[in-house]
């Protein structure tokens, strides 16, 4: 039957099939009629984007796809084509600069990628070809090649392990560079392949490439002389991934199954979608406004021009006659060119340099995070890591924090606390070092000073020793050059009998989950040592120092859905036993009820104390039962399709009717300063959601410990437990509860809208919400007839009114689902996810900002995060300190840029009314070009990198300050309007101030008159000084750099103007600024008007600055010393006067 299916598979077109067939060593197999070598891609890794040839066109195309660059290109082209007032150089030069710099940067990055690619692709590997060993470049490996890899080499492509130099047909690899897990993982050869690879004739059938690192389904047909082919199942344990490194194994042979860009590593490096910050959206909105301003200015000018020209004598006065060409031109075409000319004249209102400055600010600014020594953790010898610099400011905008529990709130440093065997509680006391070394404490239970039976104890401890996937770390102290170290060490382990210190002494275990290590270590305390695996045998040293061996038959792996794992072992005596450990909820239904009753109390008590509890059960398998399970498992493992589901079904079938032996309690300690951090986040107005896979009781106690739940917090629970109601459907009950909670949390709560005053409202009841995975899926995916959207919105509304939400029993995908739901709800709040494990990756990727913790659970979270920090406590500084500052900086930068260009261009616009709408520029071309590039760019850049309007310590001490900038407060339409009005006011002032001065242009004491360029230069001088001084006024934190660039810019402007006007420039036709600046400075009136206008345009600013001063500045600038309040006569106004604070902070948004 199998054969028939196989043939059917073969008959189909290769491409349509979701599996591929590989001929090992390219040898034709008897089963196939003819060898059609299937086409697979070669083993070249191409991570580079460009080649030498396509770099220029492709890079330019990519760059001009950005809307801003495209806009500037259009402006430039218009300048080239149409007769425009300013030369194409004025906008072409900056654009060229930006494009070139970006191209160089991208080219360099691509060159690095080419180099890295080449290093990988040209690496020499040994391939077995027709019985010979041949050296080949890695890129030439083809699917089906048999490749040899020696110790400490990385695998050149995805290989199926055929042969290992180790006796036990295994090899060890570390996937540190793939997912960061540095433990050694065991991989197995395909059973029954021949030792002689040259004569091996086999095909491998496996699924098409897919990115999941931990999934692989395939099977191998081994053909022996004219026999029915043997079929072996292939799973991830047979697959060696490209990028992983061979360890502790001399050499292996494997057949390439996926190559090049189809390897799992390559597939995984694609598509980390780019996140965009809220600030960027604001910038785009403002841009649109300015674009409208620009277009309307151009329209107004064009219209007025033609209206004005219609008046008699104005169209073509005798002194300014048109050329023949102008006379012949079509009126509408002329209007259109005029419109374009005006666009070009005013286009400086949207400057190229803003993009450059914003990018530079983000790029350079992000260094401060990685430089921060407060983020340095001496334990792991690492500081913070910045994976993207695009989101710096988003750190100051977070409204929702989604945190993982294990490893994030807690240390993921498990310690075995106590266990409960058959209803009796055992607590290990450190003093008890006897063989029988565990004394019994009571428990609040009625059983005192009693023990379970000895057999039960031992059974329980054996279960702990056997039911796991822990490896014993091979000793490293034996010298490095031990080639065949593995065997040696295994021997060494064997020889350890009777020694008091086992190899598995402290820290000698490696496991994917620290719980398992804790359990094994716990068992060790009680006298049962796990000594390690020897081929398929698990070796355990019991209390009497005898070594017991158990043959490991099957491991029923842990998965988060089943929430349990089992092993099937065979004892020396031939009994087959199944040991199972798992969450209480998944074990209890599978054991006898009376056993449950004895243990449940302990489990629940332990859970409320914040321990992680696991229940242990066992089952003696009869021969028939085992055979049935065995065949079931084997069959399921062979399945190509739906293997997971089939395996699950078998697992569920086997893991029934067990008997409960006991339960364990493992403590997971809180991270340092977890509670303080959480309190600070909540004080900063963020809502903390804990998303955990852990059980409710444990998670709840962690929440209490972290002070996320207070004693006064009223908990609203929506879990499976609360949904169980006599004889009622769950959905009805759910509906009822949701409505009830909604009434309590939303409707009855006083109408404070989330955000501003939450923490002052101590009078209000705090609510905490608890939901579990099962209920969540009920809420999200409830049946269509029961209006599911209604549930969802009810649920969201409740959650939004709770200070803390705890979601327990979450699958990784559910975590992401929740983040997505909150992210997309009304007001689209900024979300932040923080986690340390692979199960948090989905939510890290989903949230606006993803933070990885460099924890113990591998590096996947870090790799996928936007920022990575060593410890949870660093989150506080990252958000409240850095985030806040970054936000304020970039917001100020953006507003300032728009403002300074508005007051730059407005006079130019106004001048059109005085030059017959002829697009006469007010400023000289040099000034037009240099304004944004040289005269005003450095001060704002320095300011946006160094500004600390409030110093870091104060920001961290007063979490409430974070609320000042919440909801994108500084980039709202209010502040934008303020800045725009300021720009308009100053622009009007500049222009008309000089206009009235020029009502008599004789401004020198020798009676000579000034012309139009003097006019423009006076306006421009006032402009440069005003916008720079405005920035100086906004600067609260004057470092020497600020001084240098601000005064330096002004000095440079003066110097440049003298220089520009000081000589007759060769190669330039126009010498229109010749001595204009110097002449201007020789006029007292010009000086006076410049001083007057600068002062007058800054006056409203100064006034605002001063008028708000008397009202509580101290809370802003107080030093930490003042904070303590000791001996200070002038105690800081803090929360005592929320009202003043509020008015103050409202204003400050507009100022800064």
């Amino acid at each position, binding site marked *: 039957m199998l054969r028939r299916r196989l043939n059917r598979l073969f008959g189909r077109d290769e491409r349509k099939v979701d599996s591929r067939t590989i001929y090992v060593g390219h040898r034709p197999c008897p089963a196939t009629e003819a060898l059609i070598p299937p086409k697979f891609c070669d083993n070249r890794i191409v991570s580079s984007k460009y080649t030498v040839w396509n770099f220029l066109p492709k890079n330019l195309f990519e760059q001009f796809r950005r809307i801003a660059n495209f806009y500037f290109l259009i402006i430039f082209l218009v300048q080239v084509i149409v007769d425009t007032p300013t030369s194409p150089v004025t906008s072409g030069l900056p654009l060229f600069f930006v494009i070139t710099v970006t191209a160089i940067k991208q080219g360099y990055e691509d060159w690095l990628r080419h180099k890295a690619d080449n290093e990988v692709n040209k690496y020499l590997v040994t391939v077995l070809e027709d019985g010979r060993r041949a050296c080949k470049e890695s890129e030439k490996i083809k699917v089906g090649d048999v490749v040899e890899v020696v110790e400490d080499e990385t695998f050149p492509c995805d290989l199926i392990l055929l042969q290992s130099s180790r006796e036990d047909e295994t090899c060890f690899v570390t996937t540190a560079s793939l997912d960061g897990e540095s433990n050694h993982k065991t991989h197995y050869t395909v059973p029954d392949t021949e030792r002689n690879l040259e004569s091996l004739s086999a095909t491998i059938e496996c699924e098409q490439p897919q990115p999941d690192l931990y999934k692989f389904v395939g099977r191998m047909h081994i053909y022996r002389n004219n026999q029915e082919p043997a079929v072996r199942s292939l799973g991830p344990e047979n697959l060696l991934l490209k990028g992983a490194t061979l360890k502790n194994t001399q050499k292996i042979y494997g057949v390439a199954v996926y190559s090049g860009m189809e390897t799992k590593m390559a597939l995984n490096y694609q598509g980390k979608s780019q996140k965009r910050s809220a600030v960027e959206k604001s910038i785009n909105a403002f841009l649109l406004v300015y674009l409208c301003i620009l277009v309307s200015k151009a329209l107004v000018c064009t219209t007025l021009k033609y209206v004005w020209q219609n008046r008699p004598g104005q169209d073509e*006065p*005798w*002194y*300014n*006659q048109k*050329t*023949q060409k102008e006379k012949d031109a079509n009126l509408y075409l002329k209007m259109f060119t005029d419109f374009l000319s005006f666009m070009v004249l005013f286009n400086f209102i949207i400057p190229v340099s803003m993009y450059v400055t914003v990018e530079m600010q983000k790029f*350079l600014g992000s*260094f401060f995070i*990685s*430089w*921060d*020594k407060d983020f*340095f953790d001496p334990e792991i010898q690492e*500081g913070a890591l910045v994976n993207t610099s695009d989101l710096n400011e988003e750190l100051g905008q977070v409204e929702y924090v989604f945190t993982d529990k294990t490893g994030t709130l807690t240390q993921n440093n498990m310690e075995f606390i106590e266990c409960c065997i058959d209803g009796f509680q055992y607590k290990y006391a450190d003093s008890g070092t006897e063989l029988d070394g565990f004394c019994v404490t009571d428990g609040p239970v009625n059983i005192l000073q009693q023990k379970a039976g000895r057999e039960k104890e031992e059974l329980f401890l054996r279960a702990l020793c056997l039911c796991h996937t822990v490896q014993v770390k091979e000793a490293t102290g034996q010298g490095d050059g031990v080639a065949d170290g593995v065997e040696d060490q295994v021997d060494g382990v064997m020889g350890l009998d009777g020694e008091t210190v086992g190899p598995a002494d402290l820290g000698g275990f490696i496991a994917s989950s620290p719980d398992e290590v804790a359990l094994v270590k716990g068992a060790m305390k009680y006298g049962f040592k796990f000594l390690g695996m020897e081929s398929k045998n698990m070796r355990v040293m019991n209390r009497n120092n005898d070594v017991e061996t158990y043959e490991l038959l099957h491991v029923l792996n842990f998965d988060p859905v089943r929430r349990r794992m089992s092993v099937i072992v065979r004892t020396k005596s031939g009994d087959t036993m199944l040991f199972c450990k798992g969450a209480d909820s998944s074990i209890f239904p599978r054991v006898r009820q009376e056993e449950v009753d004895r243990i449940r109390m302990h489990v629940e008590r332990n859970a409320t104390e914040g321990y992680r509890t696991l229940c242990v059960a066992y089952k003696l398998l009869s021969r028939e039962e085992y055979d049935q399970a065995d065949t079931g498992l084997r069959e399921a493992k062979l399945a190509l399709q739906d293997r997971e589901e089939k395996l699950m079904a078998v697992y569920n079938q086997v893991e029934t009717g067990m008997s409960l032996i006991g339960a364990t309690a493992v403590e997971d300690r809180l991270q340092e300063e977890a509670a303080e951090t959480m309190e600070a986040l909540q004080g900063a107005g963020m809502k903390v959601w804990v998303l955990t896979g852990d059980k409710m009781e444990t998670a709840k106690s962690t929440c209490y410990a972290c002070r996320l739940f207070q004693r006064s917090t009223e908990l609203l629970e929506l879990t499976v437990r609360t949904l169980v109601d006599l004889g009622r459907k769950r959905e009805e009950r759910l509906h009822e509860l949701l409505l009830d909670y909604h009434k309590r949390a939303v409707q009855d709560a006083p109408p404070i809208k989330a955000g501003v005053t939450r923490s002052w409202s101590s009078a209000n009841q705090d609510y905490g919400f608890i939901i579990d995975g099962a209920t969540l899926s009920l809420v999200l995916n409830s049946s269509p007839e029961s209006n599911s959207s209604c549930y969802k919105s009810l649920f969201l509304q409740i959650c939004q009114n709770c200070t803390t939400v705890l979601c327990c029993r979450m699958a990784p995908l559910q975590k992401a689902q929740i983040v997505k739901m909150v992210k997309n709800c009304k007001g689209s709040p900024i979300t932040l996810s923080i986690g340390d494990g692979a199960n948090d990756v989905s939510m890290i990727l989903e949230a606006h900002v993803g933070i990885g913790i460099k924890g113990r659970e591998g590096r996947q979270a870090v790799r996928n995060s936007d920022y990575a920090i060593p410890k949870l406590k660093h989150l506080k500084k990252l958000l409240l300190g850095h985030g806040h500052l970054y936000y304020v900086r970039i917001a100020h930068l953006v507003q300032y840029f728009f403002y300074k260009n508005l007051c730059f261009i407005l006079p130019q616009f106004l001048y059109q009314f*005085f*030059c*017959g709408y*002829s697009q*006469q520029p007010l400023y000289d071309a040099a000034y037009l070009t240099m304004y944004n590039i040289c005269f005003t760019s450095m001060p704002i850049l320095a300011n946006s990198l160094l500004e600390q309007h409030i*110093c870091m310590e104060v920001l961290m001490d007063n979490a409430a300050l974070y609320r000042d900038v919440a909801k994108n407060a500084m980039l709202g339409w209010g502040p934008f309007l303020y800045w725009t009005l300021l720009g308009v006011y100053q622009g009007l002032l500049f222009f008309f101030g000089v206009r009235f*001065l*020029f*009502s*008599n*242009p*004789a*401004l020198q*004491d*020798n*009676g*000579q*008159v000034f*012309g*139009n*360029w003097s*006019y423009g230069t006076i306006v421009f001088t006032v402009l440069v000084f005003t916008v720079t001084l405005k920035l100086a006024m906004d600067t609260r*934190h004057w*470092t*020497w750099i600020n001084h240098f660039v601000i005064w330096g810019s002004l000095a440079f402007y003066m110097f440049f103007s003298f220089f520009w006007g000081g000589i007759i420039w060769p190669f330039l*036709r*126009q*010498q229109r600024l010749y*001595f204009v600046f110097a*002449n201007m400075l020789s006029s007292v*009136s010009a000086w006076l008007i410049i001083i*007057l206008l600068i*002062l007058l345009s800054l*006056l409203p600013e*100064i*006034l605002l*600055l*001063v*008028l708000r*001063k*008397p*009202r509580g500045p101290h809370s802003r*600038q107080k030093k930490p010393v003042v904070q303590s309040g000791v001996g200070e006569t*002038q105690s800081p*106004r803090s929360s005592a006067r929320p009202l003043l604070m509020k008015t103050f902070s409202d204003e400050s948004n507009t100022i800064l």
Partner: protein
Amino acid sequence: MMKEELETTNRPDNTAFTQQRLPAWQPMLSAGIVIPGFVLIGLAFIGIGVGLFITSQNITVLEKDYTGVETTSDCYKCSNPSDKNCTCKLEFSLSNLFEGPVFFYYGLSNYFQSQRSYGASKDEYQLSGDLDYFKTPVSACSPYQYDANQKPIVPCGSLANSMFNDTFKLYQIVNGTKKLVPFDGKGIAWWTDYNIKYRNPSVTPLKNAFNGTVKPSFWSKPAYELDTSDPSNNGFVNQDFLVWMRRAALPDFRKLYRRITEGDYASGLPAGNYSLEIAYNYPVLSFGGRKKVVFSNVSWMGGKNQFLGIAYLVVGSLCVVMSMVMLIVYAKFKFPEDD
């Protein structure tokens, strides 16, 4: 500056810069500084304002429109553009001494020297004496690049072509006889324009440089005859020409024509009757323009300009008023806090 080696070891550098702990001055504009500051600035501004205002008040200006729109005006007869070589008279009397040195300006209104195409219509190479551009003027000069016979126009372009060509003679009527008031035509243009920016071609006589070129169509005489009496005021460095070539910023402008610094009039125009003889050539009525003459003396701040003084007074008093307001606000909010 920013690019420091990121990680030589893993530990971040502990420098003031990387830790954002650079010593910084954190200015606080406290009321104690700002209120006196405002008072001081206000008083200083008021002082300057008063000075400016008084200075401006002391400047005498005599402004006369001579476009000839009103039929009563003597120049009415000349306002017909077809009438060439028309002269008219403008009579006025001074009751006091018009203190000197007196500057004599002409003014035009509704005249857009600031138009872009007009302003660009000149050849600066030509005007700096480069003979190559005498033969092929820049195309921006069009339609005053070549004349109908394809001969290059020098100086080319609308700006030069439309040079103001009314001339004035001022007489004082002393006992019924006209006494010419001497005009000084030097020092009316920017020193740098006269000495550096504009140059005649180094050909003597100057006339030869203009061989093969024609004068601008509106001009009555070629450039090398602008001032035949003084070679240093001839050609492109003729100061009237230079004054004209410096474009005015606004459509209503005045330009310096002559200074009265010599002879009996060095200390000013004495009281009495004067007659200004105008050679009326420049047409302005076609585009609704006006022409005027302005006699003015100047001070250290230039010509008469009330605006600056008033603005200083207003801003100065604004500062003082604001400091008062601030004081009130300060008293109201600050003092309770000290309790």
